[in-house]
């Protein structure tokens, strides 16, 4: 009986070596009398499946995506601070940026968790291939009201378009990196909300533009005040 069992496990071990499965790792090491398990570490026993972390750029783009969220989150926090100082004193704008900061912060942690869920590791130095180096440098936090909304709109679009890019890499049109789990995760957790946020910000800039343009610009100071009050109540 014992002999047969050993023979079977040996056979299994041999036949499965090339298969690279967790089971083959386990049965190969467990069939040996010595403590080979200590050294082997069962390399195939991990959460990685599909192409994730193996082929293509979905895993590394997700790392970069988490970093983008982290960076934007602290940028929005600074904008929120700027609009809360006594000279600008626009609490509504401050609230708007605080919300953007909180949301992108939560997404940062979400993304890190999801990367590790799929067997990946987080690399905080990773940048996307989509990123332009110049864009990040010459940005200042201290913008006027409409400018700040414009900047928020642009950066939110960048975040949304990055999701599109990763999604595209993960869809079946791309055989090398096809990953439906990542595609649906992006759709459910990011893409839907992003459309909402972008539409809202675009609406804000459109309203604010009206206040500036119409009535020969005489509505400007009261318009900005009222719009800030409106943001305080609705954000």
């Amino acid at each position: 009986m014992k002999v047969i069992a050993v023979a079977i496990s040996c056979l299994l071990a041999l036949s499965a070596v090339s298969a690279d499965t967790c089971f083959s790792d386990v049965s190969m090491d467990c069939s040996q009398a010595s403590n080979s398990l200590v050294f082997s570490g069962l390399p195939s026993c991990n959460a990685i499946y599909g192409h994730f972390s193996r082929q293509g750029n979905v895993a590394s783009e997700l790392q970069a995506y988490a970093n983008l969220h982290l960076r934007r989150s602290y940028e929005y926090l600074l904008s929120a601070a700027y609009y809360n100082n006594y000279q600008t004193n626009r609490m509504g704008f401050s609230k708007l940026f605080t919300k953007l900061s909180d949301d992108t912060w939560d997404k940062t942690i979400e993304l890190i968790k999801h990367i590790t869920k799929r067997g990946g590791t987080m690399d905080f130095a990773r940048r996307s291939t989509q990123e332009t180096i110049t864009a990040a440098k010459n940005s200042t936090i201290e913008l006027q009201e409409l400018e700040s909304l414009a900047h928020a709109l642009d950066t939110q679009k960048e975040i949304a378009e990055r999701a599109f890019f990763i999604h595209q890499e993960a869809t079946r049109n791309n055989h090398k990196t096809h990953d439906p789990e990542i595609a649906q995760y992006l759709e459910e957790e990011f893409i839907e909300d992003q459309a909402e946020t972008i539409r809202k910000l675009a609406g804000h800039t459109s309203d604010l533009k009206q206040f500036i343009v119409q009535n020969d610009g005489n509505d400007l100071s009261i318009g900005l005040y009222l719009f800030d009050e409106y943001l305080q109540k609705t954000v």
Partner: protein
Amino acid sequence: MKILSLAFFLAVCSAAYATQCNVDPVNVPKQWITMSRGCRDSVRKQIQMEVSASIQYLAMGAHFSRDSINRPGFANLFFEASKEERQHAMKLIEYMLMRGELTNNLTSLINVRAPERKTWSSGQEALEDALKMETEVTKAIRTVIVNCEHDRSAAAGQDDNDYHLVDYLTGEFLEEQYKGQRDLAGKATTLKKMMDRHSALGEFIFDKKLLGIDI
């Protein structure tokens, strides 16, 4: 294209028609703004330190979330700690705004840099590392207190004691630091005892305990 249009937008709004898009800045009396420079600079530095700590905790959360590490309790603990550090930075910012600060030089206030450390050999090591980090933060807060209680760079005759900020840092921040340190030290001790003879089991059980699961 995007950069071009942004540049165009900036040019339109800030240069040619400066008054078209914004209300000119107004001046109100400034005598009420009394934070001294040395004190202000110290708080600014402290804000950056809290941000860096938040990112370091993120890296710890990421490490313990990995499939080969699989310690969701530890990961949770560190992600929560990360959120707390961010909250501390926000509280300090809030305070400075109350005192009339942060009207300029906002952009350089926070720098997001990759964390220094990325892996830990065990939960025990991470807890001790966290405790070390908190001790450093506490020390830094004490330095801010010293600088705000007696600002050496203040002009002669200027009242250089920022009583209120010193009280706020002492009462709120140090209190939280000491409680946090005690909590981490207690956890590190318990875990170390559990690891004494049954390290794999000890860490597993401790992790589930952190998750609130009794096994």
